[in-house]
């Protein structure tokens, strides 16, 4: 089978990305026990989750191989996600301006 013969294993790359994702996940667990405020914790964890997701999208789901599809997925998804953020100000108003309920 020509395709099978031409195929080059990417197992090494996958293992490296897997270890990176595990390390980032471990960092989130460390942050969970750190002595910081709620908003700081939320921000740091969300940034790490976005990095983890980006690694999974690019290398596990192979978006790094297809530039057109990558931009299609990113623009579409980010637009929808941004559209959902309109209600936050109201949740802060309900709490009288205090971020993240204690």
């Amino acid at each position: 089978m020509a395709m099978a013969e031409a195929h080059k294993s990417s197992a090494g790359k996958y293992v490296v990305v897997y270890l990176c994702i595990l390390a980032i996940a471990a960092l989130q667990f460390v942050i969970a026990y750190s002595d910081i405020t709620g908003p700081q914790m939320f921000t740091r964890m969300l940034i790490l989750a976005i990095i983890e997701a980006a690694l999974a999208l690019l290398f596990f789901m192979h978006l790094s191989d297809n530039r057109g599809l990558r931009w299609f997925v990113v623009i579409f998804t980010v637009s929808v996600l941004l559209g959902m953020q309109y209600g936050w100000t109201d949740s802060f108003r309900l709490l009288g301006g205090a971020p993240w309920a204690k």
Partner: protein
Amino acid sequence: MSHADTMTGHSGLMEKPAFSVPAKKMAMWLFIIADSATFAACLVAYGFLRNATPNWPRPFHSITNVSIMTFILVTSSLTMLFAMDAAKAGDKAKALRWTLITAAAGVLFALLHIREWMALIGEGMTLFKNPWGTGLFGSAFFSITGLHLLHVTCGVIALVVVGLRYQGGRYNADDLEITGLYWHFVDLVWMFVVPLVYLLNLSH
């Protein structure tokens, strides 16, 4: 006829696929985009409630269970990639073996999840009330993790069915890759569920 022939051989009759992605794979990407909006809506609604409710409960005493679940799910993404690698190399037996290992990891994840649910229910948490604070927590927690667990369950069934049919020759490596895309998405969603639903609700 190879996939490349299908792409180029009917240039007068068929349009080229969008982004040079086969139609089935594109359909899965569109499903993933739509499903990510569903999960995002759940997580944003959860965040809104969490932000606006003063007595939000923090019922999780330990990260042991959730860290094991995370490890299992991320590792299952790796085993799915090994299955894809084997399928692309034409090694059907190896591809099926890795696919079934991935499905087994999914089953283990689901069992740990159910065990965690039972423990929380045993502590008095239901959809509408719990001993720690606002009753909204139960509905938010069970909705988000339940939706994710439903996706894991569907993924396990899909992996077994597609894996066996791939081995039997009814499906090809592309079909296995499309199922793998779905499985990676389930893993990706968990990366957001863990910090937002579990780690921010740890009792210190």
